[in-house]
């Protein structure tokens, strides 16, 4: 059944982007969260780099953007994180390089991103404790310094995955206070075509 109009009007659509080194587990986190799946050999993200998930309790609809592999040669388009309400910066706790890359993403977002963007730092692959190379203390200190919400996750065991996304949803500014009401925005669609009106003006 179609949602009543009032409900739709209150629902907040929030663009959420994932950033981080290749192989840190961005796609796996999204797949775990949206579909409850995990693959040991997650293929490169083809054909589905844009997923949506609605959280009815919080009245939020996430539009989740995945990097679509443009990260490989550091050629991610700025439009990717433009207008994003939230960003999850992912690193792999077994890879110090991925932590360095995460920090450079935080700097980039601080410089170029939306100033009200909610940023979360996710130390992923927490199930691989034996191979840990980035300590909780180090990441926590960095997150605190930069005002990031920090959590360790595992897309494999699903530990903290729902918590990560739900905490972001809770931190989103309420719709009234939202920084960008899409005033005068136009939704392009095929079926919105009106009957061409009769007019003699042109």
């Amino acid at each position, binding site marked *: 059944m179609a949602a009543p109009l009032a409900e739709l009007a209150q629902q907040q659509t929030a663009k959420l982007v994932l950033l981080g080194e290749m192989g840190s587990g961005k796609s796996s986190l999204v797949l775990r969260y949206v579909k409850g799946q995990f693959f040991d050999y997650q293929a490169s993200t083809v054909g589905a780099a844009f*997923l949506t998930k609605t959280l009815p309790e919080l009245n939020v609809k996430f539009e989740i953007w995945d990097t679509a592999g443009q990260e490989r040669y550091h050629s991610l388009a700025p439009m990717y994180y433009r207008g994003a309400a939230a960003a999850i910066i992912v690193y792999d706790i077994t890879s110090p390089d991925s932590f360095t890359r995460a920090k450079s993403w935080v700097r980039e977002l601080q410089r170029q991103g939306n100033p009200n963007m909610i940023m979360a730092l996710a130390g992923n692959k927490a199930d691989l404790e034996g191979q840990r190379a980035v300590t909780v203390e180090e990441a926590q200190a960095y997150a605190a310094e930069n005002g990031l919400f920090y959590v360790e996750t595992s897309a494999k065991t699903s530990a903290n995955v729902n918590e990560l996304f739900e905490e972001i949803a809770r931190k989103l500014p309420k719709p009234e206070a939202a920084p960008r009401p899409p005033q005068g*925005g*136009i939704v392009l669609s095929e079926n919105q075509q009106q009957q061409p009106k009769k007019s003699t003006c042109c």
Partner: protein
Amino acid sequence: MNEEYDVIVLGTGLKECIISGLLSVDKKKVLHVDRNNYYGGESASLNLIQLFERFRAGAAPPPSLGPSRDYNVDMVPKFMLANGKLVRVLLHTDVVKYLEFKAVDGSYVLQKGKIHKVPANDSEALRSPLMGLFEKRRARNFFLYVQDYDESDPKTHKGLDLNRMTMAELYKHYDLTEDTQDFIGHALALHRDDAYLTQSAMPTVLRIKLYHESLFRYEGLNSPYLYPRYGLGELPQAFARLSAVYGGTYMLNQPAVEVLYENGVAVGIKNGADVARAKLVVGDPSYFPDKVRVVGKVVRAIAIMNHPIPNTDNAHSVQIILPQKQTGRKSDMYVFCCSYAHNVAAKDKWLAFVSTTMETANPEAELSAGMALLGPVEEKYIEVRDICEPLDDGTKDQAFISKGYDATTHFETTVDDVLDMYRRITGRDLDLTAKEPVTVEA
């Protein structure tokens, strides 16, 4: 990158990005490379720092202009017709979901030294000083004819053969004055000069229909135009994303990249010591200097202002058309204006662009009629650009080259060129009615 690809695309301008998006969806293995460290090539939107690097090398933007990142200054200013071909391509590919559009507030036209709003509804038309009362009645009959005209329904032709009669004859049939003809031909049919008068009436009638359909395509439009938030540079990025989603590989910031030829045939690219091979190479003219020729020059001024253009009802976005006759020139001049409302400038700033096809050796003076409409400006940059076209169609040398962006105000010819390239590359037409599903809804 030392791999074998189906297609290598050079330059991330809008045309190249649409091509690489379409080919990736067609399951071609695409490598897309740009010499710059930003997307968009010739059709990029620059922030203030990039703008100053280009026009004021060595100088830093004054703090009065606000933060650099708030700016997205189009290098090829255009608006999208709401029912035009670009909108159809955006819907066909579902790229539309990566973008946000807002209406353009108004379209204006210069007549006898003053600018007037092109009416967007009947009541505006009634009040408009563009035509006298009797002329309005005659024009009304003409517009009703055009709107009813349906190529496949001879009843609507009313005995006129638009393929055989010229546009001048059709105007005469409806007894329209020269000012009205000027208004229709340039502000509605969007012709750049008067050559259309002696050509068949059909294409002009179709253009007027397109204008009208665009005006009524979405609720609440006051002009037939749309413009994306954050500037036109979002368009190539959105198509590049489509390509990447389908496995396309992107490499920016490769200043040394060049086409690799063997026996005169493009076989890939060279990038320093690296070589990547492909069945064919696609790109903008700047990557193929020996295979293109200059067909025209466009002169363009970019201005940053702290006010809207005077006499536009404080519009945040407008187009003003200066028909050639009104300025004593051979081609029309165009003014575009957008503000922070479309997220292309810092708070309380407006961007204005004045452009025309260059006709003399003194380009800046050529723009004076358009510049005079702007009022005081804080910053002004002038640029002359060559418009290049490929010498060949690519079938012999596997080098498929786009045309430079022409002086038109919209994207119809841009998409025509893309569709033509697509046909030359794949041997078939793009079916814009078939929609590819891209979204995954969970």
